[in-house]
């Protein structure tokens, strides 16, 4: 980890700063679509979740889904943003086979959410990224070109699904910051339950605006927009390759042309999609089928009052109350499910032990098995019991790892495993005394060496005692007895 920001494209003579702004398209978590009652369920058979409105039959009219408005407002509140009590839905007109009406209903000049901000935790400190706006819009359908050599198929299941477009200010300066920003947005929205952030299902995708300028320059360079990048990794790759391309152009005395580009993930390069001149004229105008959307302050206040504790607040609480490091707090708040699990465990168990067990042992298992914490084979209750067994001295930390392994395999309670396998710690001083004596008797030569000053051998004696007790000996007691015996 670097403690100082250092992302520049360095060339022989120059140091170039990369300026990035993101338009994130987040699918609103909602059972039905933005303007119709069709289901939004993912992965259903093509064209089975399509109403007459979604397929733009003559005379069909959109009716706003109130729940989606709530979701957008909640997200806006989560982004510390201004909620606009009056917003307007516009038509964005263009022809495409998967756009049944020939226009997308979106918000152009008057979005539902205005300026806000998101705070990132970077290794070099916190960084505030400005949010320009958030607006609601419909998704289009899907054109499928690879099912037939002569035909394109259209699936309208996605047509009309609600999206939030979250536009950042050009405040991001590196792929790392973009990574952190997208993850933070996702965390906030998952806390709020407004977007599941599932990138495989296309619930979160982004258009990435990139420009470069020499370090110290004030004015922004000409930017290019990379359309529809659907994973954080690809966003990082696309930014790097696009920034390099721009620097190369500028250093060879050429100009950047403002245009829309696509990222080719196989070739790891961006290529031109259309220039500014070829840009669509979307002929935006207010949708006459919908009245301006007017919400009351009390509607916003109600939602505000019902808002869950958000990641930044929770992090602060974890640091102050549980004495976690910022890193630990970040890890534990990254998902609501994780922080809930953690708080559940520490209701009965020691915080210091618990956080380590979760961050190190549990996460390793979950990562390995590609599981969400809510599907963890080790329940929060069982982990708490395990931690308590360590605290009480019933088992050692080392044995605990063995127990944990068995818990992962069986899902059983730790007490049952300890019992069944006879893994309780050996804490009977008399029994331990006997073991120690046996070990010492076998190693008289080593005692002589030890007493002659080879103190390193102490560890050897401890190891032998542990071995002889199959690892179950209480280390503290072993220490006490051993020290006493060796002094004799």
């Amino acid at each position, binding site marked *: 980890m670097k403690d100082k920001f250092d992302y520049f494209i360095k060339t022989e003579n120059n140091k170039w700063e990369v300026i990035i702004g993101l338009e994130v398209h987040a699918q609103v978590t909602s059972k039905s679509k933005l303007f119709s009652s069709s289901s939004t369920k993912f992965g259903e058979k093509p064209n089975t979740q399509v109403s*007459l409105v979604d*397929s*733009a*039959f*003559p*005379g*069909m*009219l*959109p*009716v*706003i889904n109130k729940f989606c408005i709530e979701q957008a407002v909640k997200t806006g509140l989560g982004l510390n943003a201004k909620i606009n009590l009056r917003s307007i839905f516009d*038509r964005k*007109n263009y*022809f*495409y*086979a998967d756009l*049944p*009406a*020939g*226009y997308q209903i979106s918000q152009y000049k008057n979005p539902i959410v205005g300026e806000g901000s998101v705070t990132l935790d970077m290794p070099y400190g916190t960084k505030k990224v400005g949010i320009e706006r958030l607006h609601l819009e419909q998704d289009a359908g899907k054109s499928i070109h690879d099912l037939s050599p002569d035909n*394109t198929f*259209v699936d309208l299941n996605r047509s009309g699904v609600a999206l939030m477009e979250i536009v950042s200010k050009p405040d991001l300066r590196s792929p790392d910051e973009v990574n952190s920003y997208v993850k933070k947005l996702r965390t906030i929205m998952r806390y709020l339950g407004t977007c599941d952030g599932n990138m495989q299902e296309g619930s979160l995708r982004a258009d990435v605006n990139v420009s470069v300028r020499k370090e110290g320059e004030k004015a922004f360079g000409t930017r290019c927009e990379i359309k529809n990048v659907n994973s954080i990794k690809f966003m990082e790759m696309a930014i790097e390759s696009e920034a390099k391309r721009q620097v190369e152009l500028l250093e060879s005395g050429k100009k950047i042309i403002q245009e829309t580009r696509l990222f080719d993930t196989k070739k790891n390069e961006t290529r031109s999609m259309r220039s500014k001149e070829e840009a669509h*004229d979307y*002929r*935006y*105008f207010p949708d*006459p*089928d*919908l*009245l301006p959307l007017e919400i009351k302050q009390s509607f916003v206040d109600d939602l505000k009052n019902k808002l869950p504790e958000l990641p930044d607040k929770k992090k602060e609480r974890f640091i102050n109350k549980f004495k976690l490091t910022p890193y630990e707090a970040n890890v534990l708040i990254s998902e609501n499910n994780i922080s809930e699990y953690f708080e559940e465990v520490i209701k009965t168990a020691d915080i210091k032990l618990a956080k380590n067990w979760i961050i190190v042992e549990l996460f390793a298992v979950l990562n390995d098995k590609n599981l969400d914490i809510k599907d963890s084979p080790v329940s929060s209750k069982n982990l708490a019991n395990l931690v308590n067994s360590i605290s009480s001295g019933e088992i050692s930390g080392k044995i605990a790892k063995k127990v944990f392994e068995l818990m992962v395999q069986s899902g059983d309670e730790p007490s049952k495993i300890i019992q069944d396998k006879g893994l309780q710690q050996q804490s009977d001083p008399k029994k331990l005394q006997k073991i120690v004596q046996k070990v010492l008797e076998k190693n008289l030569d080593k005692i002589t060496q030890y007493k002659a000053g080879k103190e390193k051998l102490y560890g050897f004696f401890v190891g032998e005692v542990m071995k002889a007790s199959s690892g179950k000996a209480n280390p503290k007691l072993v220490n006490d007895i051993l020290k006493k015996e060796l002094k004799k």
Partner: protein
Amino acid sequence: MRTFLLYQRLLIKMNDLNNISLSEIIKLVKSKKISSLELANHFINNIKKGKKLNSFITTCFDQTINDSKNFDKKQNFDGLLPGIPIAVKDLFCTKNIKTTAGSKILENFVPTYESTVTSNLWKEGAILLGKLNCDEFAMGSSNETSFFGNVLNPLENNLVPGGSSGGSATALTASLTPATIGTDTGGSIRQPASFTGTVGLKPTYGLCSRWGIVAFASSLDQAGPMTKNVEDCALMLEAMSGYDKKDSTSINRKKENYSKNLKRSIKGIKIGIPKEYRVDNMPKEIEQLWKNGIDILKKSGAKIIDISLPHTKYALPTYYIVAPAEASSNLARYDGIKYGYRSKKGNNLIEMYEHTRAEGFGDEVKRRVLIGTYVLSSGYYDAYYLKAQKVRKLIKGDFDNSFKEIDAILTPSTPSSAFKIGEKANDPISMYLNDIFTVPVNLAGLPAISIPAGKDHKGYPLGLQLISKELEEQKILNIAFAMEKEIDFKQTLNRWWE
């Protein structure tokens, strides 16, 4: 008893169902003097004999007969329109019945759903006779832009019935349906009503649900009744209107009993006469008609007040920016992908779009899509669309101001009587000018009714328009009801098309 009933039925035939109003027909049904099936057969027969008028795009006689038989079996007279066969403009989506919007691009489109407004009619006991011709996507003032051809005005061969609800106006006037519904985006109900000597009302924007109506310009479109008299108009409005949660622009309020509350009341009412509606080159006959209307109101005890609606002259240009802009976007869905016409030509998606829309849309629709696309384009948006929206607010403001001191406004419905087929077909501007008195009302979202008020020297009918502030339909219905009695408009048709 039996002989007496038979005698009564004979009387009805003699009375001729063609010459009585919807309300009278309903009385006959309720008193069991005529069955729904007999009514259905009567209108089906008229429709068959009226083919020359070309007012129907689709008929569904089997269904009509079936529904009327079912009605007669159940004999439930609770609805406002018990067992009444009715044809509707082909802009209303009707379940399992082809809905074309007068366009080739929807030539074979069969909806799986029923528009809210038509469902409201069926809930009140009405039965569908068929779908009425109209200008393509309701864009036109003469019904000449329909892919399915011109509609003839029953008054005279070669005369347009007006538009875009031209098929509705003709079918009503020729008694191919006892009443009907149309849509009005810039005058599409009131102008054809005026051209055919019938009553047409455009309700307050949001009073009738737009759900299931093929959209032209969403912020202006409103469905409304077209009838032979004011009483029928109140009844139909009551039946078709009402809040609908499926339309976000629908007004959430209690349904009104327009027919029950209908009364001839003018006394003490204040009527505004806007000076800006005295346009250049307005025919003397229309000025005279207007004056007669004023005199009638005065005589009946109304107070006449001169008012000014200073931004009126900007209404037409504003309309021809706002309406095409919305249309250009609303019609983007007709792309050959999901339903409707698709051209066989083209080697890729873009070419398929181009051929489909070039072949599927008529000239007037293309013209408006082009205008709309242009005015919304970046660089032009502020100068056209945004400015038009600002002017629209000023126009609305004019009305709001004047309604502080008056109850309703009286104007002519149209600047001329019905014209000949082809007369204006190649001159879109002069065609657009036809809507000069009706368009401001749509821009302001207000209700307005056109009632027949006289004839010109050729014997063609002329209408007067009454405008009120939002949701005061009852007020203009009542004034119109009173004026109707005084005017006593009569029109005899020789049924030349039969």
